């Protein structure tokens, strides 16, 4: 028993050693669940590794947590979608070399019957105002994610404080779970198009897109390196190589080539 245990332990130690041997070209990227759940990384990272020789380990959490992990120096690079927060933290000196990489958009979805009658509205803010006055449920991420931040921004512009209202459910879960809850409750919610398409494809939610195409619903993704002056052990050079690949013509073309199973493009490259 003990020998078998010892064997396992030695195996584990050697596993750790082997992984540190390769650690030279390994960087850690804090990113968001929506990016991971769309399948983008599984498609993109092998190409990155082939092109730059860098293996990127992705820790996928909410945008709030990803930024915090980067700030603390527990990642080398951060790939999120909360441009205002990102720029603020660059100004505060936590991150450097921030670049726009790609965008997709948010959509407001709801039950096909559309009890709040918002379908086809042009402005997300107006749709939110209408939702708050009709007797319908709105499911919110409530988790500090980029999607949640966008939602709060829309409520703010609409001069509505939804917190604590009976029709407003803060579920504190990822996008997929939030959509599922909205589906079960015949409620409305704000979602990124990537997760919406992926989930709709697999689970056939009984929901449809209500509002889309508003500039307000634009979802910009950015990448930035942890400031090596703040945390001297971060792999800044390698992080920069990863960033440079993402914003290079080849990287941009690769991102544009990523589609969901029906061939719809999920992310639109827009690096300058």
């Amino acid at each position, binding site marked *: 028993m003990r020998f078998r*245990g010892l064997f*396992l332990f030695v195996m584990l130690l050697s596993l750790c050693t082997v992984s540190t041997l390769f650690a030279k070209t390994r960087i850690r990227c804090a990113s968001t669940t929506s990016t991971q759940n769309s399948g983008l990384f599984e498609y993109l990272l092998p190409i990155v590794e082939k092109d730059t020789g860098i293996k990127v380990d992705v820790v996928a959490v909410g945008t709030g947590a990803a930024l915090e992990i980067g700030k603390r120096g527990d990642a080398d690079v951060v790939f999120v979608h909360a441009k205002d927060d990102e720029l603020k933290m660059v100004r505060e000196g936590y991150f450097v070399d921030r670049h726009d990489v790609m965008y997709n958009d948010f959509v407001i979805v709801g039950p096909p019957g559309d009890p709040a009658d918002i379908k086809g509205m042009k402005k997300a803010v107006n749709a939110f105002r209408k939702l708050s006055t009709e007797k319908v449920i709105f499911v919110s991420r409530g988790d500090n994610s980029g999607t949640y931040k966008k939602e709060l921004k829309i409520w703010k512009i609409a001069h509505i404080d939804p917190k604590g209202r009976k029709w407003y459910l803060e579920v504190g879960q990822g996008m997929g779970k939030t959509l599922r809850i909205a589906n079960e409750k015949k409620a409305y919610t704000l979602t990124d198009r990537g997760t919406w398409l992926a989930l709709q494809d697999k689970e056939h939610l009984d929901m449809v897109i209500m509002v889309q195409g508003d500039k307000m619903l634009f979802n910009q993704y950015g990448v930035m390196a942890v400031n090596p002056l703040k945390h001297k052990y971060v792999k800044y050079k390698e992080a920069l190589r990863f960033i440079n690949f993402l914003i290079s013509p080849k990287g941009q073309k690769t991102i544009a080539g990523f589609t969901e199973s029906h061939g719809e493009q999920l992310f639109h490259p827009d690096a300058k």
Partner: protein
Amino acid sequence: MYGILISFEKAFELILSLNRELAGIVVLSLLVSGAAIVIASLLGIVFSYVLAFRRFPFKGFLTNLLNTSMGLPPVVVGLFLYLLLSRNGPLGFMGLLYTPSAMVIAQIILAFPIIAAMSHAAIVMVKPNIRLAALGLGATDIQASVAVIRDARYGIISSVMAGLGRVMAEVGAVLIVGGNIAGYTRVMTTTIALEYDKGNFELAIALGIILLLISLFLNAALFLFQRKVYR
């Protein structure tokens, strides 16, 4: 109901076509939990013995603390360990966060109280005259303790089984300190949580079935071992 049946069917297909990625996840789960259980067992059994036979201050309090820690929520352990191991934390210089080693540490913390407390209960049940007899026959202190632990082995092995069950089923702590990195710190439970998020229920169920089968196998092996040593 029909959907569930379909899920199970697809799950078995996936198990039969066990691919490399899936196999890697299973192997990592076993390595992490195996290492954690071996270390936690050694620490836990020694600790329970000391608790049973040595006199020291605050012993009652310590026993209470140990029993309470059996119910430590994994997420809390994960968060606490995250703050310790983070680059900004006191142990950050070791660079352990988001490595399999961090996951092993988390699981040791979760398994140790269970193994120590249950072993303690088993050792206390051993009649004190065994130790006295051993000492009287000229055994050294260590030899006497081995005699006691041998007598309590049935309960001790049960404690190891309970500890193993806890760490194999746990998701909260390894998710936080391991980060669920593909091909590096992704284990069965964190994969199940991720695949559920992605809406791949079939894959999640398949992994759940594999996890249960492995637990069944490990427990059967320990049970046979337990019966063997009891005779």
